[in-house]
């Protein structure tokens, strides 16, 4: 569980990363573009943008209330004295406690197995738009854009914006 989380964090990291030439070629393929797009959409549902700041496990000392804090510290002392947990047991407990994502819960619920006439979370989604027409906005300045970056597929509207795009964003956030 923890491992998975850190993995996804690595994938979505906002940090600039150098991309080897071969890698760059691979990234330009449409599949990777869609992946980058999906990652971007996923990022819109994040609570904390800087993923490095989430430290769910490290707040042993930090707690919600002061008096609870003392209580907990007391209990901790006791449990330390009486029983030592193995690392595995601890990991198991953490995995149980760790909040899961909604997507995981959804997969677990196995809604696909329901007959098609039963309304469920899956059937309630609106589905794709009737027209595939899509307006494109320049990723640099926000106005309507006519050009696509040949390397990463992001949009820009003018040479000026292209330069800015190449300098700051192109192939730096897809990884």
């Amino acid at each position, binding site marked *: 569980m923890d491992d998975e989380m850190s993995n996804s964090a690595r994938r979505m990291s906002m940090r600039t990363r150098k991309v080897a030439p071969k890698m760059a070629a691979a990234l330009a393929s449409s599949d990777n573009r869609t992946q980058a797009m999906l990652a971007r959409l996923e990022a819109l549902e994040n609570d904390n943008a800087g993923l490095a700041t989430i430290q769910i496990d490290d707040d042993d000392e930090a707690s919600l209330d002061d008096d609870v804090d003392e209580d907990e510290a007391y209990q901790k002392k006791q449990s330390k004295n009486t029983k030592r947990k193995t690392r595995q047991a601890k990991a198991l407990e953490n995995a149980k406690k760790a909040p899961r*994502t*909604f997507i995981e819960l959804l997969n677990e*619920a196995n809604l696909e197995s329901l007959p098609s006439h039963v*309304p469920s979370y899956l059937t309630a*989604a609106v589905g794709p*738009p009737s027209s595939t*027409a899509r*307006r494109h906005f320049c990723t640099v300045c*926000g*106005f309507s854009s006519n050009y696509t970056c040949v390397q990463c597929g992001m949009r820009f509207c003018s040479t000026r914006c292209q330069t800015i795009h190449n300098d700051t964003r192109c192939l730096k956030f897809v990884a």
Partner: protein
Amino acid sequence: MSSNVVVLDNGGGLVKAGIGGERDPTYVVPNCTARPPSSKKWLLGDQLLSPTEDLTSATLRRPFDRGHLINPELQSSLWAHLFSSSHLNIHPPSSSLLLTQPLFTLPSIERYVDEIVFEEFNFRSLFVADSPSLVHLYEASRRPYGLVSKAQCSLVVDCGFSFTHAAPVFQNLTLNYGVKRMDLGGKALTNYLKELVSYRSINVMDESFIMDDVKEKLCFVSLDVQRDLTIARRPGNDNVFRCTYVLPDGVTYMRGFVKDPDQAKRYLDLDHKSHSYPAGEKGSINDKPQDKRTIDLTKNEFSLTNERFLVPEMIFRPADLGMNQAGLAECIVRSVNSCHPHLHPVLYESIILTGGTTLFPRFAQRLEKELRPLVPDEYQVKITTQEDPILGVWRGGSLLASSPDFESMCVTKAEYEELGSARCRRRFFH
């Protein structure tokens, strides 16, 4: 008896809590905990609203993910805080709970909630409602001779924090086969605005609370995107959309504010020339009117132009963002079309907007403009906005809680212990 019903509209963004029968909830607080980088303590609920707390770059934890409860422990500690003697001061074993839950909640999540309510807090009884039916109930009672209450049917468009639902309600029951959902809400819009501002001016990726405020104060829905885009291109004073937001510096300003509120409202005049709109529309942006024109380089500020209307635009065209989902107008049409044809004309004529995201100025006008071409000519389209879209659901809940037969609709603790979660849930027809 009815006085000790706790009504809890437990949203992904805000939790609205109060006592049934009252007009307004006692507490409307963010449903999250946050920790500023300087402290080790997680702040809960109303502590986040106090003006003395410095929430810059705070780390957030929310019990909700994509609109559904995923972290029951965090949720129960937030509730415990609200129910405690310093806040609502209730005694759960002698009170009932009316709780809202999102449509199509998974059975596993329902089980968590039942456990919290009955085993942790020991409530006497529980009633679980969905928000569209409560909104319908409230609107029907407000206008006893209106169409909503006469036809006993309405289409509730709930555009909230995590997602947007179009839900037909008939005889106080949500028709679950007609519900359509868009996975786009206020949270995604705030994050989108964050992304745009961070790329174009200042890095605000960690400032969820500030950017929420920016979104609420400055964003609006455009009625003609192409025209507004050309206006947004103009330089200098001709650009009526440009306005500046000043970030808090932690010394003189603890909260961010709009630098020049009059400048921020200039876009409204634009339409007074071409169209005519009610003047009561103007948003209440009244922060500090001093230091209007002075440019202070020590202050952190950024200006917005086209972002102001391109962000809410995504609700109407999620495809522009790369989402493979239909926009709000189409969502409504699909929802209506999945109902019985006899209901279609009534549903189009009784669209009720609720949820915090509908608070963007001109949201309803734009929706009507988009919806009209999609609806058959012989049907009327009428969109009603709630007087307070954030509290609408709670008020409906309060009304239901004060009705005489509320107690008989609840599941009691004894029934829960006897039958278990799944059997009890059947009573609520979700």
